[in-house]
């Protein structure tokens, strides 16, 4: 504003000089087509030379940098999205693995329980079988022993009787007497 006023003032002061036709040094509009031609030549030269050797490389660098930043941001975005997807996938897999591990442990526990029960059952059955066999063997042994006692007792009795009666007994007598003695012995035992 101040400058405009000063210009107006100066132009106002110099107006009489301009009007008087003394257009020499005091004319602020001094100049001619020569100035215009030189301006055109120098500016076009500057435009062409700088366009090739300065503005071209700068524009190229700016465009490349913009593209590079754009690409880098796009890559970073896609990398982040991939990482987030991978993360969620890994989380899901981890959850699944946890669930599977829990299931496996549970199944193992159940299997172990079943195996334990089966082993117990088998062991019990085996023990029962052993006990039963032992009982049978004891029973057989007992019967055999008793039979042997009977047989030995009969023989002894026969021997004693023979000596007592002084008579030789025949084999048939032995058999008969032995049978009678066993039967008597059994009857006594039952009673």
């Amino acid at each position, binding site marked *: 504003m101040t*400058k405009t006023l000063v210009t107006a003032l100066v132009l106002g002061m110099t107006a009489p000089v301009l009007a008087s036709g003394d257009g020499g040094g*005091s004319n*602020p509009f001094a100049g*001619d*087509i020569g100035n215009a031609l030189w301006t055109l030549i120098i500016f076009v*030269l500057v435009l062409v030379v700088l366009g090739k050797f*300065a503005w071209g490389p*700068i524009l190229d660098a700016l465009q490349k940098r913009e593209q590079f930043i754009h690409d880098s941001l796009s890559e970073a975005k896609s990398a982040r999205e991939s990482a987030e997807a991978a993360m969620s996938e890994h989380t899901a897999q981890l959850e699944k693995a946890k669930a599977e591990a829990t299931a496996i442990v549970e199944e193992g526990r159940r299997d172990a329980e079943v195996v334990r029960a089966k082993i117990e059952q088998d062991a019990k059955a085996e023990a029962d079988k052993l006990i039963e066999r032992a009982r049978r063997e004891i029973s057989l042994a007992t019967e055999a022993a008793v039979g042997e006692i009977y047989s030995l007792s009969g023989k002894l009795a026969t021997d004693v009787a023979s000596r007592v009666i002084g008579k030789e007994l025949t084999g048939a007598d032995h058999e008969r007497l032995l049978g009678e003695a066993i039967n008597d012995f059994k009857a006594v035992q039952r009673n």
Partner: protein
Amino acid sequence: MGFGQSLLASGSPVDHVVQHQLWTMPLDLGFPFTPKGEITLLSDQLVMMMVAGFLLVVVLPGLIRKRRGSDEIGCLVPSGFANFIESICQYLRKEVAEPSLQEHTDRFIKYIWSVFFFVLTINLLGLLPIAAISPFFGTHIGGTSTGNIYVTTTLALLTMFMMVANGLRLGGMHYIAHFCPGPLWLAPLLVPVELIGLAAKIFALAVRLFANMMAGHILLAVLVGFILTAGTAMGTGGGLAIAVPVILASVAITMLEIFVAFLQAFIFTFLTALFLGMSVVFHHDDHGAEAHGH
């Protein structure tokens, strides 16, 4: 004859900010082409413009090539002064050009960058006090080329050429239709108005830069002139007494001028991008038409 003496002798601060011809050739093309019946082949302002062009062409390409490294990433990172240039370029591209030029930004960005750096370099070179010391060497060089209406008008006309040529090339009938935005029967009224609007844009572009650069320099010349006027009227003591506040004010105004050099380069560039965008970007209207059609 020094700056002060010449200033005093001329009696007008405008003398020291206008062009001083160094080499002319008689040629009468009439007003406005050759108002004095001669064509300027070389002047102090033209020398400064050549220096500006030389500096841009020779120095800038070397400065922007500095990169952090040569690998894939290092070559994308500027280093040293290239940072400064590239950040300005990127700002102009993204914040100034792209809102107006949209998909055409990279097509015109070299022109936009050239306009900005060309105007800025000329503006900044114009702040160097070369014109004040060159008379000691028997010549007169220095000055601000953008303080010459013919220079700024040429740059503005180049922008108009870019607007019209690219508007026709990229838009065709769309661009021509812009000159008659209303019903066809209003064309006799609207077309001249639009044409005047186009001319006004170019006129404003040229005059704004010229007036701002001219005004700052005239202001400085007026301030320095106070010292000489006081010295003449009140003697050496009076001149020295006035010199202190005047020099302080001149320093402050010069600081302002540095800011104005950047600001005017920016405004010229911004308006160039804006006007160019108005000529080559059409799809907003297409969307509007489609919306109305639906």
